[in-house]
Every structure is written in structure tokens, then in C-alpha cells.
């Protein structure tokens, strides 16, 4: 009897102990790694599979698998990198704080510094081809190159011919090797037809010349002979005559600031504060609001790039605050996992 009792005692101790050990043994930490993070300012679709993102404190991220995975690229700078432009799948330029200009000739893995000759914060860059490019930034800075960035020349840009007016230029787009459109504070838009030697004020409808104030334009895009500009109060304007006349698009939104815009083959996206995104499929005639995950509504989006893929469909990348990355493929947005997962990790 006593042995049976002892066996029972033994079992009553061993069985719960076994399960306890199972529980103790199964514990494991599960903090997920997010390899793209920080504030991201600009992005570029280099090819069908290769994407690049730049951001604060010299961050460069490169993906070779359609934004599935990202790797950090050494930039050799801690300065903010504000914009990136890839005219082909090998050559790219990045501009940023303190006049930083970086050039890659191998599709993004390595970057070398180019001398800009300025200390301004370069906020936008656009290359028409591998030779001709333009960068703009704070304090009316406009830099032009015709030799792939070997030399950068400061353009004699003046926002106001009558007096010195410091204007922060926020966006640039090249229409051809000589024609460049720039935009910035107070809704000012300018064009040059001679690679920045002379500039024409495009008389943006957003600028009140008399009051010398207007709605900021943060971004420019050019597609199929049409110029697009996006800015404050959900504004998108477009011009089919190279900036001579402008039409205001009805986006249906007045709350957000649109910090970025891109249009390819009539398909366009503008994105901005509060994670607001609008898209067009008819070259800006009509715009629809895109539904985004709740986490995206807590961020700003400051970079978008679209490119027509080999299959004829438009691929794109949208980036913004706190590592927000979304891909656009054949009319569908897909957001990076941590953006989808909500506030709690």
C-alpha cells in the first residue's frame, strides 16, 4: 500500500513538474527586426526590382527584390539626404544637407562624394539623363551639371529681379537637357530653357504677387508634356504648356500638405501629411483618395517615385516618417510589415 502511495506521490510531483518544465522551456523573445527605419525623405525606382530610399542622418537603403528586403548602404555622411534621382539603372545622385551630393555608378551599392561648392541644404535633385541634372535647395540655391556631376555650377537664379529674396526651393524636375522647372515656398514656380542661365517666373496660381505670399509647393513631376505641382491644403496644379498656364486639380482634400508627387503614363500619386494619398489614372483630371493602414495616417509621406516596368505596368515606391515604406504595383499598394502591425509591437 505504501509503495502505491509513494508512486502516486511521485507521479503527482513529476507530472506537474514536467508540464512546468515545458512551459519554462518554451519561452522565447520575439522582438521583430525592422531593417528600414528613421525618417525617410525620398525614394527612387531604379529598375523593376531595384529600389532605393534615402533619409535622415545619411541613411541609404537599397532593395534588389522589389522592396521585400532592404540593406543599408554606406553613405559616409551623417548629413540628412533629402532627395535621390536615377536617370538609368546604374547612375544615381543623392543630395542633402550641407551641400552634400553623392553619385553612384553601379546602381546604388557604392557612392562617392561630388563637390557641390555650396553649403546649402539641397532639397531636391533631378537628372534628365546621365549627364544633365539639377539640384535645388535652401536660400535660392540652384545647381546645374552637364557632365554627370563632375562639375556643378551655381545658376544665377533670382526669385525677384528687383531685390534679393531668399527663397527655399523645394522641388525640381527636368523636362529635357536644358529645360528645368523648379518650385518652392509661397507657391513660386520658375522655368529655364537654357540650363539655368535665365529663369522665367511661371506665375503660379498659388502665388499672390501683390501680397507676396502663397501656398507652398513641395513637389513637381513631369509626364507626357504635362507638369504637375503639389503643395499646401491638398493642392495639385498641372500645366500642359510647360508652366504658362495652370489648372487646379480637384483632389477633394483640403487638410493635408502634399509633400511629393509623381506621374507616369498618366498614372499619378501625390502623398503627404497624415498619410494622405491621392491617385489619378487620367493624367490629373480626377483624383481619388487611397485608403491606407491606420499606422500610415500617423505619419507624413515625403517621397514617391513611379516607373513604367518592363511589363508595361507602373511600379512605385512611397516613403515617409518612421520607416514608412509602401510599394505601388499595378494599382495596388502594399505596406511594409511594421507599418501594417499598428502601434503595439
Amino acid at each position, binding site marked *: 500500500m505504501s509503495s502505491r502511495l509513494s508512486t502516486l506521490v511521485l507521479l503527482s510531483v513529476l507530472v506537474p513538474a514536467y508540464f512546468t518544465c515545458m512551459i*519554462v522551456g518554451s519561452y522565447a523573445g520575439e522582438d521583430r527586426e525592422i531593417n528600414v527605419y528613421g525618417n525617410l525623405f525620398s525614394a527612387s525606382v531604379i529598375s523593376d526590382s531595384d529600389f532605393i530610399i534615402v533619409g535622415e542622418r545619411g541613411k541609404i537603403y537599397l532593395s534588389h527584390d522589389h522592396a521585400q528586403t532592404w540593406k543599408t548602404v554606406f553613405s559616409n555622411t551623417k548629413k*540628412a539626404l533629402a532627395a535621390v534621382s536615377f536617370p538609368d539603372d546604374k547612375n544615381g545622385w543623392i543630395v542633402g*544637407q550641407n551641400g552634400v551630393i553623392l553619385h553612384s555608378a553601379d546602381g546604388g551599392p557604392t557612392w562617392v562624394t561630388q563637390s557641390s561648392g555650396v553649403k546649402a541644404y539641397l532639397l531636391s535633385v533631378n537628372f534628365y539623363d546621365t549627364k544633365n541634372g539639377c539640384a535645388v535647395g535652401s536660400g535660392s540655391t540652384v545647381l546645374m551639371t552637364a557632365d554627370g556631376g563632375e562639375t556643378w555650377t551655381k545658376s544665377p537664379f533670382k526669385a525677384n529681379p528687383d531685390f534679393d529674396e531668399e527663397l527655399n526651393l523645394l522641388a525640381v524636375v527636368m523636362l529635357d537637357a536644358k529645360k528645368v522647372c523648379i518650385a518652392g515656398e509661397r507657391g513660386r514656380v520658375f522655368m529655364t530653357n537654357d540650363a539655368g542661365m535665365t529663369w522665367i517666373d511661371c506665375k503660379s496660381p498659388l502665388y499672390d504677387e501683390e501680397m507676396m505670399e502663397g501656398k507652398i509647393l513641395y513637389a513637381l513631376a513631369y509626364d507626357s508634356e504635362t507638369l504637375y505641382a503639389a503643395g499646401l491644403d491638398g493642392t495639385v496644379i498641372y500645366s500642359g504648356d510647360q508652366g504658362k498656364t495652370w489648372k487646379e486639380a480637384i483632389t477633394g482634400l483640403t487638410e493635408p500638405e502634399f509633400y511629393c508627387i509623381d506621374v507616369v503614363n498618366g498614372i499619378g500619386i501625390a502623398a503627404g501629411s497624415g498619410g494622405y494619398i491621392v491617385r489619378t489614372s487620367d493624367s490629373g483630371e480626377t483624383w481619388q483618395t487611397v485608403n491606407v493602414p491606420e499606422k500610415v495616417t500617423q505619419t507624413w509621406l515625403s517621397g514617391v517615385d513611379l516607373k513604367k516596368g518592363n511589363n508595361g505596368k507602373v511600379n512605385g515606391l512611397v516613403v515617409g516618417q518612421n520607416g514608412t515604406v509602401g510599394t505601388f504595383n499595378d494599382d495596388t499598394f502594399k505596406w511594409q510589415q511594421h507599418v501594417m502591425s499598428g502601434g503595439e509591437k
Partner: protein
Amino acid sequence: MSGNEKQVKFSPGACDANFILKHRFVMLSVLLGLTVFFCVHLTDIKMAKEPLETMYPTGHKFLPAINAIKKMAPEPSMVVGVLEVKNGDIYNTKTIDKIDRITRGLMSIDGIMPSGITSLTRGVDHMNNSVDGFRSAPILGKKWPETSAEFELLKRKVAVNAMGIGRYVSYDHTAVMITAKLSDIDQKMENAYQQLTDAEKETLSFKDYKKQQTGAFQDNLLKRISDLKLKEDDANHTFYFMGMEILMAQMTEMGKRDIPIAAGTMLFFVIALSAFYFRTFPGIFIPVVAMIISILWGLGIFGWCGVEFNPMALLFPLAMGLLSLAFSVLTLKQYYRLNEKIKDKNLAIAATYGSTPVMVSILTVGLVTLSLYAVDVPMIKDLGVFGLFWMVGTFAAVILINPILISFFPVSKVIKTDVKDGACQSMVNHLMLLSGGKGKYVIPAVLAVIIAIGCFCVANLEVGDNAPGSSYIRNNHPWNQCFSRLAKKFMGPYQLLVYVKAKEKGGITDPDALNAIGDFSDYLKNQGGAKDSIAFDMMIKIVRTTLMDGNPKWQVIPEKKAQVEGLGGMVVAQGGVESFIDKTYTQATISPFFPEKDAGHIDTYASRIQAYIDNHPSDKVEFYPGGGLLGMTKMLNDGTRDTYTKVLIAAFFGCVIFGTLATGSVLLGVLVSIPVAVAQAVLWIGMTIAGMPVSLPVVPASAVAIGFGPVFGYLLLGQVFGVHNGLRSYNHGNARENRFGKTGEDVMFTGIIIFAASLPWFFIGMKFQSTMMLVLGLTVLLEAIAAVIFIPAVAGWLKQCSE
């Protein structure tokens, strides 16, 4: 002359006991005089001013950072409220009105700074860009939302607001936070004290006035906010609130309510059980006197020596007093049994109270408790010192006062001789069956298995439940309900701060320093496991963006130090950033908010932080982890882990060594320690199954219980064959028939009375104290059961092996 009589004659303590009895009136007068003396010194007990700080292990690597952060920015007193919506979200008129009413209600409470209240309806501004530049306006606007479209817009505004999601609105939009800063209470008291008349000041010192007024202030605060809660809670809304002042008031309220009930119930159990067991007045009176005197002496010497006492360990003296009660009960019974045998009252008293096992047992408890002094946690160290003082008090109470008191009563008045075998005896008889027959082979095997499983469990047992504040009270307490909502629904209270020190004065404003801070903060947020992270770099960037028309590309650190200083001036001027940057720009903090608070996760976070620091040295700044709730919790966890290990080793060795000294045999020294090992093993298994982590109160309770355990072994072995006779004389059958069963009954009763006396404390709201008492009571009960089951069986098995 029997063997026992021989033992009596040769017992060295018996001569002392005879001396005491001979001069009992003088001795009693002296002892009572000393008791009065120590009672007077009770008022000299210095209460720890910063109880939490005495719980941190000295020399912990987080300590310098914690002290630096505390010096840099003392934590403001604050009330934090959470209004939770049960069904739906906060975006409706009823909820917004409720938030506003609570906000206004808080403003009207004395001691809350109206300007320091922030909620969705007050102090949270929406900023947006316009043609005229950046605009800032209350997030609800001039006209509060009414339609669903307007509420949807509010939701979007909340989403982009720096004080929105995770801060003042929960991630799931079902709760809002309301914070209210308290005015400078010290200053207020000082001003009020100055208004008193000179006569009033003469009768009331500022210290006493402050104590009085602080209590009144805290009570009023708690009452007013409780009234607000009562008014605003409805079927769909619940208002929770917390804060240090609130906690103090709640703890005081809880103490006033729970402690008398628990103490009364404990006394009832002690008296009822003693009455049931002894059935005489002295049988109740003498143990209770022993308990009270040991506590008075222990605390009195504490006050006399000026050792600091941590109010968190309030029940520790009581726990030790229960052991004095146990010694008194055991010796009283032993006296009775011996007297019954030798029919000589004085000789029986002298033999019982002068016997080596009793003295060694008291010495073992005292010295094992003193081993707590060897650890690095000041509070635990002080408890170790208390153990020493308790030993003196218990010696006085049990060895000196108890025999004198007994000598005043006739034997028959002390214990009823006609009491039949009771429940304890019946229990012991059943347990004894386990160790008979084949049991003597099976039981040692079971013993080995239990100890092996126990060791496995203790190796895997988590340390935890040490978070300051939330761990001191029950999970269902209103304070913790608010706390858990903050942790789950908001950015939460689980911070593990990184203290940043610039290598040069004012060096934080160096752009490289700020970028290093920003990199670290980003790492914590994105790879370090934090929900979010706040640092000074972020504030600079936000101010800069505001100045640059809201363009996010300007959300970067300026290139020049002077520019940073300019922006820093604007940040500091706004106020409320003291905990992130000091005025000289030489010290700063990075505040990551983590999702979990268990020891495993905290260790992971801390190791990630340390690894980052090791791998990312900066020319401009130095990083030191520490601070925040998780920093403090980690220190307490590390202190617990370290002290628990040290204390367990010291206590076990202490038991074996004292057991060896008392019995004159290493084997018997180990044998008397078996109940201790089994009780601890079963406790660890139980803790593992219940998911109960090892917290700080477990450490002193375990030490005391371990120190007490061998007494059962001494008594059982002593009764069976006399501890000095060794195993050769052991015969299980004879032992059972002879004295073992009776002594086993005493052992079981002692275990039960300690457990019963501890039990009421388990139900009080103060978790720290209740854990301490539960561990003590449960361990002693387990030790008693283990002693009755295992000691005879193992003794039998050892004898078998030796043959």
C-alpha cells in the same frame, strides 16, 4: 536514572536555567526593565526616507545613471487618469464632453495646477501649415465635432499629433489619458506653516506639521478624484487614475483598513490554536508574550542602534516574532513532556530551556538571518541586522522570560494532561505510515526526485514582480488597473532610460552628438524592441520643421552648433523637457518605451542597449543605461537574483554547519537540514507551477524560514534517540511507539500555527508584505510536514545502509 536525566545533567545550558529560576524575580525585573528600555527606543527607529532606494543593490551599474537622472530632473508629482470607453471609440460627443468634465473637475481640486492639466480637450494643439505660416489651435477646434465626418477628421488630427496616438489617445482609440501636475506641496506647506502663530509653531514642528498636512492633502486628493470617478463612470465609460500621491493615500487607507483586520485575525488564530492545543491560559499567554517581547526587543535595539528601517519590510519583525512564538510553543510542549517523565518541574524547565537544540535553533535562525547582511541590497542588509537583534530578543523571551513565567504556574495549569490525541497527532500518524515498511526505501527516492525537480525549477525560476509601485499592490487594485491600461493601451510607463553625458560642457548641442543620440533613439525604437523613443534630437527637429513651413525634409539636425543652441533655447523655453535635457546642454536622456516588464524582456532590452553602447562609441557623448521604471525594476530584479542565490547558499550551509555543531555529526547535520531542502524544493515547484516569480520579499522570508527549518530535525532526532547517540540506536518501530509521534505532533502544530498566523496577511492589499508572510508561513508548514515524513524514513534508510 534515565538517559534523558543524564542528558539533563550534562546539558551546559541547564546550569544557566537553574540559575535563572533561582533568581527569577531579579531576572524578571531586569528583563522587564530592558523591555521598557527598548520600548522607549522604538520611537528612535529611523524610517528610510527613500524606501525604494534602499532596495537597489549598491554598486549596480545602473545606479550612477539613475542618480544622475534624478539629480538632473526630479520627477514631478502628477496624477494620471485614463478614461476608457467599453464599446466603440472616443470619437463621440458624450465621451468628449466627459473628458472635458473630468478635465475641469481636476482643475478645481486643491493642489492640482490648473495650468498643468493636459487632455484631449485642453493643452493638445493641432498644428498645420497655412499661407500665413504655421498655425496652432486646440485640436478640437473652436466648434467641437458633432457629425461623423467631423469626428473622422478629429481622428486624423489625433493620428498626426505629437501628443496624439500612444500619448493622450490610446493606440486603439478607445481610451484617453489625462495628466495633471501637482503644485509644489513642500513650498505650499512651508508658506502655510509661516502663517501659523508663534504659539502654534512652538507646539508643532514643521516636520510634524508637514507630515500631518501631507497626509491630509493626499487624502483630500484621493477623495476628490474618487468623487469625480463616481460621477463620471457609467455603463460605457470607466475613469481610472493613479499617481504617487494617490498611491500613498491608497496605501495609507489600505493599511488602516487591512492591518488591524489581519492582525486581529492572526491573533485570533494564534489564541484559538494555542487554546485548542494547550487548553490553558498560560499555554496561550506564554507564547504570545514571547512573540511580543522578541519583536519589542528586536525593534527597540534597532532604534537604539540607529539602523534605518524600510517601511516596505513592515511585517518582517512580525514574521520573526511568529518564529519566537513557535519556539515558545515547542519548548512549552517539550517541558511538559519532560516533566511528565521525570516529575520534577524545575529540572524539566532547566533541561528544556537550557537544552542545546533550542539554543542552537535560535542561534541558527538569528545567524542565518544575519547572513542577509552579506548581500548588496541595503534594505535586506538591515533585515539581516534585525535578525541578530531578534535573536537577542528571542533568547531573552524564550530562554529567559518563558521559564520564569512557567515557574509561576503549577504544571497542570500550563498544559492539560488529559488531552487525547488530536488532529495533529492523527495527521502525524498517517504521515508516519509513509515512512514505515518499504516506505523507508521509497521515501528517500521521492526525496531525491523532489529535490532534483526543485533544483531544476529554481534554476529556471524567473525573477520578477519587482516593479516599483505596481508590484506592491494587487493587480485588481484601482491603481494597478489604471497602470495596466497605460501599459497596454498607451506608450506606457515601461521606460528604460539611457543617460547621456556630453564629453564637453554644453556638448549635447553639437550636431554630431545629437545625431548620435538620434541614431540610438532610432535603434531602440526600431530594433531595440521599444514601442517608441523620445529624445532631445526629436524636439530640435520638430521645432526646426515648424520654423521651416512644416516641410518634413527640414526635420533634421542643423549643421551648426549655434543653430542647434538657438532651437534648443526655444525647446527649453516651452518647459516640460527637464527630463530630456538639462539647462547647460551637458546631460540628456533617451526615453524608450518598452512593451513588456518581465525580467526576461527587461534583460533583453538592457543587453541590447549595452551592446549598442559598446558597438557605437561616440566622440561627443557617453551613454549609460539606467533609470525609468524598467531601469529601477532591473536593479531590483538583479538585486533579488543575486541576493536570493547568495542567501540560499549561505542559509543551507548555515543549517548544515549549525546542525553538525549541534549534533556532533555531519551526517546528522545534513539529516536535520532535509526538511529545509524539501520545503524549498516544493516551494520552487509550486512557484513554477503558479507562475510566481522570485520577488524581493521572497528573499528575507526564505532566509528566515530556512534558518527555522532545522529546529524540527533537532526535536525529532533528539526525541527519538538523542542527537548525540547517532544512528546506531535508531529503530523505526520503537521510535514511532516511543516519542517520535508525540514530538511529530508538536512539529506539525508549530507548522500549522505559523501558517495559520501568516495566512490572514496573504489577503491584505499590500502585496509586498503578503508575499513575505505567505512564503514564510508556507515554508515553515512544508518544513514541518517534510520533517515528519522524511526524517524518520531517511534515518531508517541510513541505518539500513550503515548495516
